[in-house]
């Protein structure tokens, strides 16, 4: 028997929630939903093209997780297990969406940029550049540069080798750099 992994109070609390949910406690499962839905949304949103699809993927993912909960081993990391399920749900939705409709940035989204003109131009150029980027490369760059996942984690989420995730990230960055190279603010 290997040494027991020392769990943080949060991890202990999560394990208790998992065990209770496995015993049929829906309130405990609601606690797991509350803990993980934001990160699950971020994973799904990196893969699908729209907010609505990301929301659907999150709901589908939790539904699959609920059905498969008895097969989950509590010594595993629940988040990693769940995010893989959500990523699979998002990949399914993305596959179903063969027609890529316009993925316009909603007007209500806030922007961290100070200059509205630069922000608008960057957003418009970025939108066009992302449209020409492969779906997997787009997911990889968002998961890595925005969500902070490591290559191996991205590989596990998307079902691709770690080297492929690394390569996709490199190509995605190069593509965006080319597309956004002559922005007004750089001149």
């Amino acid at each position, binding site marked *: 028997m290997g040494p027991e992994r020392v769990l943080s109070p949060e991890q202990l609390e999560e394990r208790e929630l998992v065990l209770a949910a496995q015993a049929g406690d*829906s309130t405990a*499962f*609601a606690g797991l*939903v*509350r803990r993980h*839905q*934001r*990160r699950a*949304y*971020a994973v799904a*949103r*990196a893969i699908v093209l729209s*907010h609505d699809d990301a*929301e659907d993927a*999150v*709901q589908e993912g*939790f*539904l699959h997780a*609920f*059905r498969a909960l008895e097969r989950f081993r509590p010594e595993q990391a629940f988040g990693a297990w769940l995010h893989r399920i959500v990523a699979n749900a998002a990949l399914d939705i993305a596959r179903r969406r063969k027609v890529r409709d316009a993925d316009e*940035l*909603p007007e*209500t*989204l*806030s*922007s*961290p*940029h100070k200059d509205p003109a630069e*922000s608008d131009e*960057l*957003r418009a150029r*970025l*939108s066009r550049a*992302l449209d020409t980027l492969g779906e997997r490369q787009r997911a990889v*760059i*968002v998961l*890595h*540069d*925005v*969500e*902070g*996942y490591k290559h191996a984690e991205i590989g596990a989420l998307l079902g691709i080798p770690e080297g492929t995730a690394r390569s996709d990230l490199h190509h995605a*960055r190069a593509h*965006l*750099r080319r597309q*956004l190279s002559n922005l007004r603010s750089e001149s």
Partner: protein
Amino acid sequence: MTVTRNDDGRSAGRSPGADPRVTAALAARYAAPAGDRYWDGLEQSIMQRLAVAATGVVRELRPSWWSGFAELRGRDWRAVASVAATIALVAAGAAFVRGQAASAKARELAARAAVETAMPLPIDGTTLTGGRRHLPADAPERYLNPLDP
């Protein structure tokens, strides 16, 4: 709808080689909705879907009248088939007997109708009374002793 980053301590946006401006624009584009109301609503939606799914599972577990067929083995199927054949035979016999009875009754009615058509009943009152008027006076005696001259 306002948005926020899903930052839980990961090194988001600080990856070496990443353009900070592009990363910031990507973060704005792919940011999750902010505000507890949205997440409370999403949690409720998820739990409602789970409740519906759980109801479906219970419904699937409840045995239906046809669910027993799946458990029948070959020998059971032969028994069921022989019982069904017997029932079908009895039903066919009953139908045959009932058909025979119906056709016999129809034949009898047809024969009676044919006789009544060939020999119509005398419904004319004049004829009846006229016939009686010409009876001989000794008719009762002839009726009682028909061989008398």
